[in-house]
């Protein structure tokens, strides 16, 4: 899923400074699962913003609404009635697709992101997420024993590990495990080194973000 993190509250406050009526929109997709922008997080942020305003004697209404998803126009449409009530600002609590879809559907509204979109990852434990994919557009994890060097190696090297691998962790931080240590150890433990010997060629990044913004069109689905 896409892992997000709430922006610092001061930054969010700066978005709505001087505004009186704010709509906070959550998303029941990825950000609900990673506890960043679901109904509950919307409720918490709304309460914090209200408390903050109240303590300073400022007038502020924060309405809350959580959509099924912010990345599908059908769901974004559901906000139409609410938006027509007139808000000074709309805060999206989705990944960065959310504020963009809201802006596109409601072009007159001032839409702000209240999350930072961090990475594509999974939960290692409750409350702990780690990056596992960089959307390079051409998955090769089968070559690497089910582990991804593109997203999990700090240098995305295709023939590792580099000299910065120490005791299973990366030179950049003890918090970052060296994926190449895992890959090499796995092949050695399984006695499959011969299988692992070929040099992996220089990667073609054209299907990655380097090829420009990407788009998929599935003709059989397009009406």
């Amino acid at each position, binding site marked *: 899923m896409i892992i997000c993190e709430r922006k610092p509250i001061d930054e969010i406050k700066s978005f709505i400074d001087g505004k009186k009526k704010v709509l906070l929109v959550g998303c029941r997709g990825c950000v609900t699962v990673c506890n960043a922008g679901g109904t509950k997080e919307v409720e918490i942020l709304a309460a914090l913003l209200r408390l903050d305003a109240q303590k300073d004697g400022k007038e502020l209404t924060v309405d809350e609404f959580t959509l099924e998803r912010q990345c599908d126009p059908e769901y974004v449409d559901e906000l139409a009635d609410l938006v027509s009530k007139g808000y000074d600002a709309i805060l999206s609590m989705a990944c960065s697709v959310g504020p963009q879809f809201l802006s596109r559907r409601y072009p007159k509204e001032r839409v702000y992101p209240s999350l930072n979109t961090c990475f594509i990852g999974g939960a290692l434990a409750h409350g702990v997420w780690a990056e596992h994919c960089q959307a390079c557009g051409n998955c090769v994890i089968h070559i690497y024993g089910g582990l991804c060097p593109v997203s999990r190696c*700090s*240098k*995305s*090297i*295709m*023939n*590792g*590990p*580099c*000299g*910065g*691998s*120490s*005791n*299973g962790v990366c*030179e*950049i*931080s003890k918090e970052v495990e*060296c994926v190449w*240590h895992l890959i*090499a*150890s796995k092949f*050695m433990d399984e006695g499959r*080194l011969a299988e*692992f*010997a070929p*040099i992996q*060629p*220089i*990667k073609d*990044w054209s299907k990655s973000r380097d090829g420009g913004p990407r788009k998929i069109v599935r003709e059989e689905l397009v009406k």
Partner: protein
Amino acid sequence: MTREIKTKSNLERVLASGAFAVTGELGPPRSADGSEVAHKAKHLVGNVDSVNITDNQTAVVRMSSMAAGLLVQREGLQCNMQMVTRDRNRIAIQSDIMGAYALGINNLLCLTGDHQKFGDHPQSKNVFDMDAIGLIQAVKSMRDDGRLLSGQELPPEGRPKIFIGAAYNPFADPEKYRIHRTAKKVEAGVDFLQSQCIYDMPRFRAFMKEAVDMGLTEKAYFMAGVTPFKNLGMARYMQKNVPGILVPDDFVNRLKAAPKDKQAEEGMKIAAEQIEEFKTMPGLKGVHLMLIEWEHMVPEFVKLCNLTPRP
């Protein structure tokens, strides 16, 4: 062992002759003042066969390795231009290789490069279009097949005749895998390999034996990295803090036993003893001296090790 000479590299000439080769290392300044490079190079001329010019080492911005390499070559010493893939994509890499060769650079050391996280510009975007092994392949393809990575051909007179180098680290983790990664560099087409500083002689011996047994030393020239300890503190620091570098207690104790003003001397003595062993170690063809910010000691050190005059 006689090998075909592929380039005008002095280092290749020495290695192919069967003589024990010596390379040095020079870090360009964080400055646009070329005279500093020339000044450092003076200590190395005549004492080493070629000198590595580091490429923004530890991701700290310094004068470009190509420019500093040329300044060194003006002093009469060939350089091993280091190139990291951290800062260049394949377009810049191939372009720089052509340019470097056109300007008279014959040796290129292919490296992935340190991550910028601990450099002086951690905010920067890195490239890593390819790793060191990809870089070796790219240079080899340009030199031997006359082809760019795109497949486009270079004219015969336009092929960069580069002597291709790379680094190997016998002790980084996972240690058992290190020989296999080195083997990949050899397979990719590297001509010479320089190691990180070696202190643990028994383990290095074991590593070299593996390299010989796998036939790697027949395909590429292996050189051992040497850095004399300046003092006890440095030995202790390297022992504790530098991943992939193993400093035996024995060396630390010898430095400890020496009076403070004699520690540098003892450090050089230890290194000289190591070099004596390297000279006869099967499969090993030379040493790479890394006297970082201690370049002025090189003349004295190579004399102590009986490495001069250079062939």
